[in-house]
């Protein structure tokens, strides 16, 4: 057994570590701290943040890969091993005991009959009520443990007695609405542990065409969705920052060239540009099969390519915003003054411009996330999304088109993809609304 890293794993963990360091760094500035406290001050933002963290946690669990007996498994795979092992023959509805369609069988007396075959890995002896109760208590227990630990940690950090602080936190009497966060966490934990308990004995969300468990597929798709949303911004950010700020600061021919670049890229219809780039990638990958040791690696590289392509086509909007803002800031007295004092350009960018455009960058990043998750689905439908062997909501929806035409209709795959995607995008949208509201200087006068 050994650890292995796919390219996207390295990127996503790198991002997590740098975010952590960044958080430590900005934590030193009281203004920034105050701003973030304002973001989390709202109950809606707190609920969204807990949900988003849950998704990110799943994505991270799925981004630690182990090689066991020459097969790559992620930590999530290991936790859900029973779902991988319980692959049925074909479609079955959620909580069904038999297959979805009748099959022809030769009976013991030699006659043939059309019957619903029982599912192989469903265990109806266990009562559903008992399993739910079991899962509920387990979830509650973990939640109580986590909440206690968290309140204890806060009391250590704030130098307050636990017995005084904890009741305050549990009554939402602190600056941040901790009670809201705890309730959300408890609900999430209970839901998952109930589903987890049930999944050992039933196919909670049914099975797909080849008998794969839909719950497993939906959970595996989280990584793809989150990675596309998060890493694409990582790719686009440096391009947009460097080009946008240089255009606004250096003006002249630099500005002309950069403006020309983004106008040109902008005027090509987006899907066409992405489709063309993905086709190029497919051909290159087709010509070099020796680059990849396994199908996972191949799918991973394809995901990485897609992320790069999406990033390279989506920097233009942010770049234009940054250019305009830099133009404005570079006219302000303190920048003119530092230029007159002979401060170097790099230092001006670092000291004056970057801190003053940071709110635009942050707002753009959180606003883009949900759009990118939705874009993945559309691209997979067009056939230029992630690898068809990779689990993603886009591939699930794409598959669902054929299932809708079946008689009777197979609806659970689509509904599961819909549900998991909806919660993620909704939480992201609500959270980004809050970030925009707090960080946008136009909202500072508290009019609306």
């Amino acid at each position, binding site marked *: 057994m050994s650890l292995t890293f796919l390219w996207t794993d390295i990127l996503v963990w790198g991002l997590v570590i740098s975010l952590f360091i960044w958080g430590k760094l900005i934590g030193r500035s009281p203004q920034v701290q105050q701003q973030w406290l304002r973001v989390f001050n709202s109950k809606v933002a707190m609920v969204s943040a807990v949900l988003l963290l849950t998704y990110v946690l799943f994505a991270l669990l799925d981004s630690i890969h182990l090689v066991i007996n020459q097969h790559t498994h992620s930590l999530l795979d290991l936790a859900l091993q029973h779902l991988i092992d319980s692959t049925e023959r074909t479609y079955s509805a959620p909580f069904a005991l038999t297959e979805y369609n009748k099959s022809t069988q030769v009976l013991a007396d030699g006659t043939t009959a059309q019957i619903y075959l029982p599912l192989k890995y469903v265990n109806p002896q266990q009562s559903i009520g008992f399993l739910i109760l079991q899962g509920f208590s387990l979830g509650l227990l973990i939640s109580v443990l986590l909440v206690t630990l968290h309140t204890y940690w806060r009391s250590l950090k704030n130098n307050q007695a636990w017995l005084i602080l904890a009741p305050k936190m549990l009554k939402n009497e602190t600056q941040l609405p901790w009670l809201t966060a705890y309730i959300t966490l408890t609900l999430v934990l209970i839901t998952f542990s109930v589903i987890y308990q049930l999944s050992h004995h039933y196919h909670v969300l049914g099975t797909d065409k080849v008998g794969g468990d839909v719950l497993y597929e939906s959970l595996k798709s989280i990584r793809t969705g989150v990675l596309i949303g998060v890493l694409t911004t990582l790719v686009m950010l440096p391009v947009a920052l460097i080009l946008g700020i240089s255009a606004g600061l250096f003006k002249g021919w630099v500005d002309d060239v950069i403006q020309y670049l983004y106008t040109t890229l902008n005027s*090509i219809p987006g899907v066409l540009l992405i489709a063309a780039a993905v086709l190029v990638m497919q051909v290159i990958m087709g010509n070099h099969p020796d680059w990849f040791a396994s199908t996972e690696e191949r799918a991973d590289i394809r995901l990485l390519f897609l992320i790069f392509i999406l990033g390279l086509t989506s920097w233009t909007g942010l770049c234009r915003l940054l250019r305009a803002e830099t133009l404005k800031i570079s006219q302000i007295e303190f920048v003119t003054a530092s230029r007159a004092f002979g401060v170097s350009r790099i230092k001006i960018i670092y000291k004056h411009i970057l801190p003053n455009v940071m709110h635009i960058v942050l707002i753009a990043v959180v606003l883009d996330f949900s759009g990118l998750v939705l874009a993945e689905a559309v691209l997979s439908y067009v056939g230029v999304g992630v690898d068809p062997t990779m689990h993603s909501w886009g591939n699930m929806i794409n598959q669902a088109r054929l299932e809708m035409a079946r008689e009777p209709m197979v609806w659970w795959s689509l509904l599961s993809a819909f549900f998991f995607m909806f919660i993620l*995008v909704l939480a992201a949208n609500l959270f980004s609304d809050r970030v925009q509201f707090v960080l946008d200087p136009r909202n500072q006068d508290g009019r609306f």
Partner: protein
Amino acid sequence: MLSYIIRRLLFAIPILIGVNFITFALFFMVNTPDDMARAQLGAKQTTPEMIEAWKQDHHYNKPLFFNESAAGFDKVQETLFVQESLKLFMFEFGKSDSGRQISSDILERMVPSLTLALPTFIIGLTTNIALALLIVLFRGSRLDMAAMMIAVAIMSISGLFYIIAGQVLFSKIWHWVPISGYESGWDSLKFIVLPVLIGVFAGIGSGLRWYRSLFLEEINKDYVRTARAKGLSEIQVLFRHVFQNGLLPILTGVVVVIPSLFMGSLIMESFFGIPGLGSYTLDAINAQDFAIVKAMVFLGSVLYIIGLILTDISYTWFDPRVRLSK
């Protein structure tokens, strides 16, 4: 004004050259003209002569960006890129790689695209503005909050779900409209109703929020306070003053979209089997038909640039304070 427009049109030329360059570079990174010839002629029994003849026929027999065998300026001019781009600038789209006349294809498919896109656009716009005004009337109330929550929820659902759910409900279960397909003339109505409805509904979330914030921005200005002080009712204030003054930013957002309506909606058209330009483009991508792809990319860029210029012109038209000729 005229000189401004001419200058903007001249600026469009380098942009279009850049667009073409990207299209050519991307496409020929994947395909060689030989591959294209083989694909079109059928993989079996293609002799080198046949391939050469096909390339000659479809003008793919020149080098891509640089012709070493030519002399002087012809090194650049006698290339696939320059020759083909020049034709595009004359709006001569030529034949598709499968042999059909592209410009007649485009003209033919423009009608279904427009029958789908125009009603979606007009109904969507009026619904969004009307609803936004209504919500602004009740700003700060619970209705406002509820409407905003619903708007965020609508935005958070992928358009693909609306399409699939709409098809299942209205076509499969209730049998009100056909699932997909298209007929010309008035018969198209029954095929268009569902996609238009879905298009309008899917756009309500973001549209509502956008127009609401536009109107809210207006409503805090001094002239609105003056109008209220004059004793106008809230509805009069909204419709006479706020709405009219909000038109300018609305126009900016709207005019830029109008030219691109011709291109149709890629996803909608292919899901509902409407033979418009969107599905035309998507099919061409899948069939790797370069002649069509480059024509559609070019057309799309031209329309986008026209949209930008139209936006600027409409600015002066509706707001006399804006002067373009600097």
